[in-house]
């Protein structure tokens, strides 16, 4: 009988890993290097800081009726993206956390049904979902019809920052619920009972037992909502009527204008900022885990 030496087997394992290693190097790492390369070169591929400095120094004049003021164009766009993304993430957390808790405490049959229900909208293309909100929020849309019917009068929603936030919350809401739910479903209910037996009130149980235990789910939920909402470009175009340029719109706009080097520069800056944020969050999570 032929026996296979461990060295032969390990060679085999290296062989099966080879295609993916090559693929990952060629199509994950090299493209990221190209972002940096384009960001730091001009159209003749000579080294330059021009694109990066343009992001930080480009100014434009905006007028709101009577007064006009000069602003840093891209810094303002970035600040606006961050603001809307943080608001959306916070609303998702505020709605998603109790929902995940309710789901994790339901019977296993109800849990399964609720998870399926929450996932169904995710299977619809997000362009269509966003477009449906556009027709709902229009000045002559269904929501204003309902509001007029109960006497709250028509409200102007489409084209405001609120409309963009509604779109972001709707599109990314399941990404908040599902990670929190999966952590909470595994939580040992005896811990909650023990805390109660030892005299903890409901708020204390939430603050001292449930919240710390669910923190890993919350962190991955926050990351999964924050990152797509900070970099979106379709939602702001449709629900903001293109009035609210976000960082994603800036990248897409430069791409459409065939201004690839500046598009790469914006993408590069966004990537660096997100990496720094994520490193901080991960460290915070690790510290909490160690403390617990």
């Amino acid at each position: 009988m032929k026996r296979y030496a461990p060295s032969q087997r390990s060679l085999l394992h290296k062989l099966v890993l080879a295609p993916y290693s090559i693929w990952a190097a060629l199509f994950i790492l090299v493209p990221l290097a190209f972002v940096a390369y384009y960001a730091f070169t001009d159209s003749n591929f000579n080294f330059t800081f021009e694109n990066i400095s343009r992001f930080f120094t480009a100014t434009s004049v905006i007028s709101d009726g009577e007064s006009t003021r000069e602003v840093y164009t891209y810094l303002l766009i970035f600040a606006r993206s961050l603001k809307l993304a943080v608001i959306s993430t916070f609303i998702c957390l505020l709605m998603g956390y109790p929902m995940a808790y309710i789901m994790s405490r339901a019977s296993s049959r109800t849990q399964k049904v609720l998870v399926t229900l929450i996932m169904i909208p995710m299977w619809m293309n997000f362009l269509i979902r966003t477009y449906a909100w556009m027709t709902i929020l229009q000045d002559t849309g269904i929501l204003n019809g309902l509001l007029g019917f109960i006497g709250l009068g028509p409200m102007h929603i489409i084209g405001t920052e609120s409309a963009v936030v509604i779109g972001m919350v709707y599109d990314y809401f399941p990404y908040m619920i599902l990670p929190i739910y999966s952590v909470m479903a595994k939580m040992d209910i005896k811990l909650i009972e023990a805390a109660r037996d030892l005299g903890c009130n409901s708020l204390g149980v939430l603050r001292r037992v449930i919240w710390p235990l669910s923190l890993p789910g919350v962190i991955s939920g926050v990351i999964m909502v924050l990152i797509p909402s900070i970099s979106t470009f379709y939602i702001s175009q449709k629900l903001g009527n293109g009035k609210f340029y976000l960082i994603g719109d800036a990248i897409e706009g430069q791409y459409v204008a065939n201004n690839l080097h500046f598009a790469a520069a914006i993408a590069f800056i966004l990537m660096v900022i997100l990496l720094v944020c994520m490193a901080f969050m991960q460290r915070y999570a690790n510290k909490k885990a160690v403390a617990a």
Partner: protein
Amino acid sequence: MKPASKIFTALVMIFLFAPIVILLVFSFNEAKSLSVFSGFSFYWYRELFRDSETLNAVKNTLVLAVCASAISTIMGTAAAVGINKLRNRYLHAVMDTVTNIPMINPEIITGISLMLMFVFVGRLFGAATSLSFWTMLIAHVTFCLPYVILQVLPKLQQMDSALPEAAMDLGCTPLRAFFKVEIPEILPGIVTGLIMAFTLSLDDFVISYFTAGNGFQTLPIRIYSMTKKTVTPKMYALATIIFFVILALLLISNLSDSDGSRVIKEAKQKRKKLKAQNSI
């Protein structure tokens, strides 16, 4: 559930399904309006099936999703096997980090980065347009791979490593042991990975938008160009059809899932009975 929980759940469900219900209802609208329902008709469905460009986009999307999910499932499963066997901790960490990049990076950056490379390489070879079906396929395989690996890897880690070794001790070649012993063990992970890759590829817009050539249009890109102009309920008809296809798939997978678990339960009960009889 407490009444307060029930009310909260109901409100969340209304929020999640209101747009979808509106979509379904207005796809049957007689008139072009997307806010006033004037009468029931199948007009927009007939219009949809006359729109050859959209139908072609559906075909393209399916072809791309089948190719991308097949390639990423095979390569991803092989990669998971290799990663699982990596003894070097440093290499292991490198592979983990690289695999995480497409999942953590915003889609727009993945799309832009691939596009920049394709354009650059295309220019090297003097091609006027370097974006085509093939660049899209590469992009889709790239963003599907991590999801396949993350589904298969835990199954490999759960598997008893003595199983394939026993098979090899009994005279299996490593390859035969892999197909006869390891594959059946990790099959649930492979199937979940395949389904995830397929749906991700079907649904992707952002990365496709940056890597698509002029000649090859997928459904999300077609929808994007439709929503740039004023939209007719034709798109709602399309969304309704997609919705019911998804619903049917989900119901079928749930049914077969509960069937599967029932079979396992019955087998377990039988085994228990046998054990009880043996102990007597």
